[in-house]
């Protein structure tokens, strides 16, 4: 592993800005980009990361390695632009000493739009840190551990702390945190508040998902508005919020439709699109480019759906990927399709199932914003009883006509592993073949890309699908 890395402040963010700009430019010529990535495949797909392909391999593989359709590549370009715009705003705000609001993942960053301030998702480098090479996330995690962060924390959050300590993410003005999806979040929110020394607003995410829980979240959003008004010394602009939420409604509509179309046999879409859309949603759903991405993805999947075509020529296996996808191996989706004709038809984070926000009044906007926050993927499943995980899983078994399940048992996820026996029993009862991976989704040192490929290959072979 490379030591003595250059940790110039915000280096990773700047590297991402450069590469995301390239993605955006190349996506203007989707056919050319696809052909280019396809031709170069021998240099990065079958081989591991080398000094030659280190800076580009992750990006190329996330872009499908030439296997996505030109329409999807174009949509990815818009996604890259949405993320790029956010990173640019963040770096600019940092340089000019303007307010930056850290909004933890699985919370609504939309309110920041209404305050005309830059929001930053402190978990952004969980995915985008890989662009610098596979060793980088591990180095950030190590830095956090070296400074005393508990090793058993979920690595996603250790990575945030490491990135902050190494000044790879900017100093916030205020932070917005929440009590879901897990204890690491609860704990890291305090660590971050202690380290940064800035005011923090914390959402107490209710345990249940009923009317009183929605009302409680709604009340907290009003508190959040008061907090932001006081901390940022500016007033909320309701018109901006309305515009923003109307875009979010459209964004959710398109993605929700894609999820519905995934129920078709053969499945017309690839799940990496939706997983990627979740990342974009987390980072900058405020950008008009996020909506353009959703529109384009919808158009591509709809086209296939109407023609009765699948994302692969011969769909052999329909897979449910349960629990968060592997951040360092985003190519998993396309690899399974390409190698085995196995299509991930639904997963834990890409699935959009939420309400449309009624923008007719301030009250309805906040009421429904509370609901959308509670329906955000990962938060929706992880904050309450195990049924929030298993009911959705079983629903997907039926609705998506799933042949098997892959459980990405993330190392730091204590409540996930404490539910594993229940999940296993359900699969056994329903005679659902399941592969239980023991993995760290952020850190390849637990099980690396090759290890994942080997385990999945062996699983498919043992069921006669390979």
């Amino acid at each position, binding site marked *: 592993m490379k030591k003595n890395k250059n940790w110039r402040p915000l280096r990773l963010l700047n590297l991402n800005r450069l590469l995301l700009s390239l993605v955006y430019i190349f996506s203007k010529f989707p056919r050319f980009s696809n052909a280019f990535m396809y031709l170069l495949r021998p240099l990065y797909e079958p081989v591991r990361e080398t000094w030659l392909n280190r800076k580009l391999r992750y990006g190329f593989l996330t872009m499908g390695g030439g296997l996505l359709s030109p329409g999807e590549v174009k949509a990815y370009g818009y996604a890259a632009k949405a993320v790029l715009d956010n990173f640019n705003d963040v770096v600019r705000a940092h340089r000019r000493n303007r307010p930056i609001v850290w909004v933890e993942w699985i919370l609504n960053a939309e309110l920041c739009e209404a305050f005309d301030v830059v929001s930053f998702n402190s978990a952004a480098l969980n995915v985008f840190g890989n662009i610098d090479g596979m060793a980088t996330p591990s180095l950030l995690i190590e830095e956090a551990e070296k400074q005393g962060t*508990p090793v*058993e924390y979920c690595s996603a959050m250790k990575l945030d702390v490491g990135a902050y300590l190494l000044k790879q993410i900017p100093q916030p003005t205020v932070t917005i945190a929440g009590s879901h999806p897990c204890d690491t979040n*609860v704990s890291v929110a*305090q660590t971050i508040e202690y380290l940064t020394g800035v005011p923090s607003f914390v959402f*107490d995410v209710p345990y249940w998902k009923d009317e009183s829980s929605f009302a*409680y979240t709604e009340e907290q959003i009003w508190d959040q508005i008061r907090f932001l008004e006081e901390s940022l010394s500016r007033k909320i602009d309701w018109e901006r919020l309305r515009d923003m939420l109307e875009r979010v409604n459209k964004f959710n509509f398109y993605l929700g439709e894609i999820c519905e179309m995934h129920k078709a046999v053969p499945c017309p879409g690839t799940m990496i699109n939706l997983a990627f859309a979740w990342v974009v949603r987390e980072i900058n759903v405020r950008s008009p480019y996020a909506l353009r991405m959703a529109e384009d993805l919808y158009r591509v999947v709809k086209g296939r759906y109407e023609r009765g075509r699948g994302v692969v020529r011969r769909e052999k296996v329909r897979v449910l990927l349960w629990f968060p996808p592997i951040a360092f191996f985003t190519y998993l989706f396309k690899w399974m399709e390409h190698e085995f004709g196995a299509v991930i038809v639904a997963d834990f984070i890409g699935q959009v199932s939420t309400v449309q926000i009624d923008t007719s009044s301030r009250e309805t906007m906040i009421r429904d914003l509370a609901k959308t926050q509670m329906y955000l993927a990962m938060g929706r499943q992880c904050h309450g009883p195990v049924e929030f995980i298993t009911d959705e899983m079983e629903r997907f078994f039926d609705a998506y006509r799933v042949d098997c399940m892959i459980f990405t048992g993330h190392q730091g996820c204590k409540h996930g592993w404490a*539910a594993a026996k*229940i999940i296993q029993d359900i699969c056994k009862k329903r005679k659902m073949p399941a592969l239980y991976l023991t993995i760290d989704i952020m850190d390849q040192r637990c099980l690396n890309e090759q290890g994942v490929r080997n385990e999945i290959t062996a699983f498919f072979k043992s069921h006669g699908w390979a």
Partner: protein
Amino acid sequence: MDIFEKIKIMAGKDANEFLEGAIKNGKKAIGYFCSYVPEEIIHAAGFVPYRMRAIASGGTSRGDIYFSAINCTFVRHCFHKALQGDFGFLDGVIFMNGCDHTRRMYDNWRHADIKPDFRYMFVAPHVVNKTARKRFIDEIATFRQALSGHFGVQITDEALRESIRLYNRKRSLLAELYESRRQEILPIRGSELLNILMAVTMMPVEDSIALLEEVKNTIRGRAASSSGDVRIFLASGCVEEGEHLELIETCGGAIVADNICYGARHLDSIVDPAEDPIQGLAARYLDHVSCPRMIDDFRRRLDYLNCAIREYSADAVIAEKLKFCDLWGGEIYIIRKESKKRGFPVLALERELYGAGEGQIRTRLQAFFEQIRNRRAADQEMFKAAGNNYTVS
């Protein structure tokens, strides 16, 4: 056998004669999991609140079927006991969203369909503010309804006030014992207090008050530590084993204050008897010295720590956690950072509940105490070196 030995035996078992007597007389016992569950509601229903514990589990093998190796030993031991039928005397169990490990206990308990039938998830907020207080009031009221609905009993305001009075009395007595450790020579050791708390959280409150009165009378003029002991503030989550605290004491430590489940978090502050009972309970249970599950309260916990160090003349802090406890892992990180700012020594320990490793812990404790004594001695030497004729008359 003196009273402390009697209590130690009681604390080492699942149940004691007081609880068994109450059950024999037709009382129902209701288990609950966390310091945020209001015992008064259970008591006002005519039941005996029983703090769930892992004691005398004999292992985790059955619990390990449901919980993984990255779950803490408290839940694995407890669930092992549940599957063995050790909690068969309970008529209900109140779970809580205390942490990721314990909240899944509710799920696994239902999945394994372990008796009793009344299994209730009590939800406490993760923040301390006005909005959360309102929510907590509703939660306590819902809990009251659920309990009375299931068992067909009335929980009247009058009964609640009486329960509040009794529990206030119990907490005040515990607080007196706790605070007696401000003295230079402790009249009661930390391990003894832990045993008392283990015992009184599994018996009718009326009996516990009588027992505490007896203890209070016994400790007058008692010397349970020596002046050379290193005075310790203990910060931790689940500590059940009196033997573990005895280990600290035999190495030369005297636990003078704490923030542990069976300690300050149980006895800190009383319910305001003048307030509406439910509102009073919500205020007390939300505002007592908190556990790291309360996200926005770490500054108040640090204040409590700093204040206790001053008031109880603590020389050092031992901050412990069970393996895989994120919440206490993060808290220890903050305590260590704070120790550098404030200059108090900290020993961070990680351990398993009822686990091995006593030798390792002993070595670490001995080394830590030696450092502190050396520091103390060095300070005294400096004082001497300065001569004793410099004092201003």
